[in-house]
């Protein structure tokens, strides 16, 4: 008997004002003791919903409309609250996708550990155990004394992760636990996770958009599309020969950023609208191999070459064969899809005059508790410029001060020392660090920001249409129907279609990736001169990532936008950015053209970053990833 057995599970959202949405449909799978299962899928395809259903944490209007979840012999769909409570965390723990918000804001981190131990009557010294757990996720023990709001996004995620492992559960459900983490930390954590898993033998269901990591870590990979599992097979097999066209599309969107030539493709089209009945295969509309039968017959998930696949064409073995595991894999795979994101570059942007100059900026946070004060130097003496038509990537460890820098540039906070000058306006240069009131507002007509945490960047009481209409009304003078149409266009452009379906939704009715795209759309609405994008694609699947990157790239080139692109994802930096800045502990340790920095890093820290990038293809083919091309 497997540890977790999910049988024909269906989950439907039945909101009052919108049509019912079959977010999870007839899903069946099993996870054995100690197994590491990856779950891939398009943003909004139902991964988090599935996870919540397994944990019995669905809240209205979501309902399990069919099927069963059996964990360790206990039927979770039937179990009463008390039974569940005993199981939870001891046997079954999780990291939410919104893990940045999942810590109690008014109690210290340590107390949240203490809570957990106490709830399950775990004896022993809380501090010692918590410290140990934090070390596991590469956090200093000082974090124990901190309140959640004093931590950076990535730090909060790590705390959540540490918390999930606190009771050594049998199954951990990780819903994008590392979106906010840089590759180095991510890697060390995942390595540690793997070690622990070997030691303790717990099973993991790992939801992530980080294809590289999933493929490298997972024993088995499940791919979801439109609320269904479309493919389920061992990771190695997936790499060698993905059988579902959607899986192939996903793999085509991935590449190793260290390679000299990086090309990715994406799957054009939009996911199916699950509120409507569909005949046939859900992927048909976007499938390059679709046949007539696909349009009428709904395929079943059937055994196929050592795994399971839900594709008529594959099941009848009419799929073209591709050989994976080579550097050309992406190209090969991508060739089946019409759109490829090659991201060409204009000649040389370096000579354009900067629109924004950051000069010797430092930022120190002082927090007071009673009479004691403590301070953190989040940014130290950073200098750089942003130029029109150029993307500058800002990479660096979690907590290295990236978001802080973004806040300084946009005037949300003021630097302790140093200057930020905006020279892109029509008038004279602006000292951003001195702006207030009206001037600041005018400045933001030109400078927009995509927030790191899409869960807190959208007002829970306001519809998407409202969020998008504000910049349109304020900066473009659009109102009423015109604004709504433009908002719909913006949503379409970030891959949220049909837009009408999203406009009247509230943030909590969206998946993480969907929210992230709304936040992006909002930042693009005023057609800014400078765009600060703080991890804008961390919650998106690779395909949509590629698409959004292309959108951003086009904007930069065509509208001569200057962009500061904050990311942990070096692949996207490689694809999008002209220059790279590497931040370490608040200091810019390396900067230069993307190719140079990634190709020939001088700084130790940069090299460490590059070394940490997973290369599943290499594993599949037995080749070692090469740090340099």
């Amino acid at each position: 008997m497997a540890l977790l057995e999910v049988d024909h599970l269906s989950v439907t959202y039945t909101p009052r004002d919108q049509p019912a949405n079959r977010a999870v449909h007839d899903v069946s799978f099993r996870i054995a003791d100690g197994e590491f299962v990856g779950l891939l899928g398009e943003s909004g395809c139902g991964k988090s919903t599935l996870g919540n259903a397994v944990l019995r944490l669905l809240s209205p209007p979501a309902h399990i409309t069919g099927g069963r979840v059996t964990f360790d012999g206990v039927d979770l769909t039937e179990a009463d609250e008390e039974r569940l409570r005993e199981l939870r965390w001891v046997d079954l723990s999780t990291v939410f996708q919104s893990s940045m918000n999942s810590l109690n804001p008014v109690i210290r981190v340590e107390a949240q550990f203490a809570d957990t131990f106490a709830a399950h009557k775990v004896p022993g010294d809380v501090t010692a155990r918590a410290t140990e757990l934090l070390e596991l996720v590469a956090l200093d023990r000082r974090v124990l004394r901190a309140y959640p709001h004093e931590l950076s996004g990535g730090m909060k995620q790590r705390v959540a992760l540490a918390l999930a492992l606190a009771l050594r559960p049998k199954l951990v459900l990780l819903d994008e636990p590392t979106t906010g983490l840089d590759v180095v930390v991510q890697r060390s954590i995942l390595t540690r996770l793997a070690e622990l898993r070997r030691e303790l033998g717990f099973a993991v269901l790992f939801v992530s958009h980080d294809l590289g990591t999933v493929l490298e870590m997972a024993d088995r990979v499940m791919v979801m599309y439109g609320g269904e599992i479309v493919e389920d097979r061992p990771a190695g097999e997936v790499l060698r020969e993905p059988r579902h066209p959607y899986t192939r599309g996903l793999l085509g969107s991935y590449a190793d950023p260290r390679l000299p030539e990086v090309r990715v493709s994406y799957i054009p089209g939009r996911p199916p609208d699950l509120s409507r009945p569909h005949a046939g295969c859900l992927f048909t509309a976007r499938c390059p191999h679709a046949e007539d039968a696909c349009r009428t017959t709904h395929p079943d998930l059937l055994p196929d070459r050592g795994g399971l696949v839900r594709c008529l064409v594959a099941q009848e073995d009419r799929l073209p064969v591709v050989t994976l595991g080579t550097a050309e894999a992406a190209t090969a795979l991508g060739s089946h899809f019409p759109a490829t994101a090659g991201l060409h570059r204009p000649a040389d942007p370096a000579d354009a005059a900067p629109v924004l100059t950051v000069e010797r900026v430092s930022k120190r946070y002082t927090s007071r508790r009673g009479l004691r004060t403590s301070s953190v130097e989040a940014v130290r003496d950073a200098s750089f410029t942003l130029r029109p038509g150029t993307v500058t990537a800002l990479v660096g460890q979690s907590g290295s001060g990236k978001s802080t820098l973004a806040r300084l540039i946009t005037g949300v906070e003021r630097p302790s020392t140093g200057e930020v000058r905006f020279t892109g306006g029509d008038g004279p240069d602006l000292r951003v660090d001195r702006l207030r009131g009206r001037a600041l507002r005018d400045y933001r007509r030109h400078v927009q920001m995509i927030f790191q945490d899409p869960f807190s960047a959208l007002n829970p009481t306001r519809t998407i249409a409202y969020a998008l209409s504000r910049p349109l009304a304020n900066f473009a003078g659009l109102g009423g129907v015109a604004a709504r149409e433009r908002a719909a266009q913006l949503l379409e452009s970030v891959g949220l279609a049909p837009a009408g379906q999203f406009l009247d939704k509230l943030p909590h009715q969206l998946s993480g990736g969907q929210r992230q795209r709304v936040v992006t759309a909002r930042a693009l609405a005023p057609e800014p001169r400078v765009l600060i994008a703080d991890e804008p694609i961390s919650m998106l699947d690779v395909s949509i990532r590629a698409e959004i990157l292309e959108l951003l790239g086009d904007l930069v080139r065509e509208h001569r936008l200057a962009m500061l692109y904050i990311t942990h994802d070096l692949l996207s930096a490689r694809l999008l950015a002209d220059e790279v800045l590497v931040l370490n502990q608040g200091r810019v340790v390396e900067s230069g053209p993307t190719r140079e920095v990634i190709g020939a890093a001088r700084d130790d820290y940069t090299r460490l970053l590059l070394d940490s990038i997973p290369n599943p293809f290499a594993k599949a083919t037995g080749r070692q990833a090469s740090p340099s091309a």
Partner: protein
Amino acid sequence: MAYFLRRFVFFLGTLWAAVTLNFLIPRLQPGDPAEAIVSRLAGQSESVDPAQVQAIRVMLGTPDGNLFDQYVQYLGAVLHGDFGISYTYFPYSVTHMIGQALPWTVILVGVTQIISFVVGTLLGTWAAYRRNSRVDSVITLGSTFLGTLPFFWLALLLVYVFAITLHWFPERGGYGGGSSPGWSWLFISDAFQHSVLPAVALLITGPIGWIIGMRNNMVQSLGEDHTRLAVARGLPRRRIALTYGARIAILPNVTGFAIALGGILGGTVLVETVFNYPGMGRLLLESVSSRDYPLMQAIFLFTTIGVLVANFLADLLYGFLDPRVRKVESA
């Protein structure tokens, strides 16, 4: 340290402004103390003897100088803690009168406020935790219904039923006519019996605000992600309700409570009037209606200081309870 200094200066500024208002407002009221006293003595259907007004004016000592001189004098006196002699209780000093009334109010109102707050918060928590259940309805509706019964009406009913009809409790006053105030056991038990009905009246009407406030805030905080994670972590229901829901929801109520506590120095006019309770509220009402400036001013000063200090503490406490508002300063 600079922060505290600033707050303190701010506190003093407010205090000064309040003290000034306390001086001005009574004097802006029409009517003069001597006339007020005489017409109170004469009652409604008798004419007033001007000679009596004259004599009382002499007795109280007409305030000398113009308003400004009086103000300067008043400030000086306040600084020295000298509040003068009460007009209504001549020749007893204001300090004496307040000293007598204050303990009654502080004990009765203080205790019931604290109980109301605790009970209200707990019930509100419970109602929110069982949102939309029968418990919720019973608590919320029941408390509203009881809590919004007009106070003096409710108090009269209580007196009628429990004191006049059933004779379970004395009908009014802080203690019996036959006992002599002091620290004797007899007196304390007597005082306790006398406080039961006013306390019950206060407790019936007291918790509603806290209940509704708590419930609403907590329903909100229970909807947040961290509560969901707490559920996932298998924390006991009670623990979630308390540390996750209530701990956050209680924050706005804390301010309210501090202010309410600060306000008790001024007493509750209605309770004390209906129950003839010998506290500050009744004294205040009396001083206002008889233009007893010295007494009025002193009571206001006490109330002002009470509220301001409570406010100040609430600020500090809030910062302690809600780490999110702790000021983060750029250095």
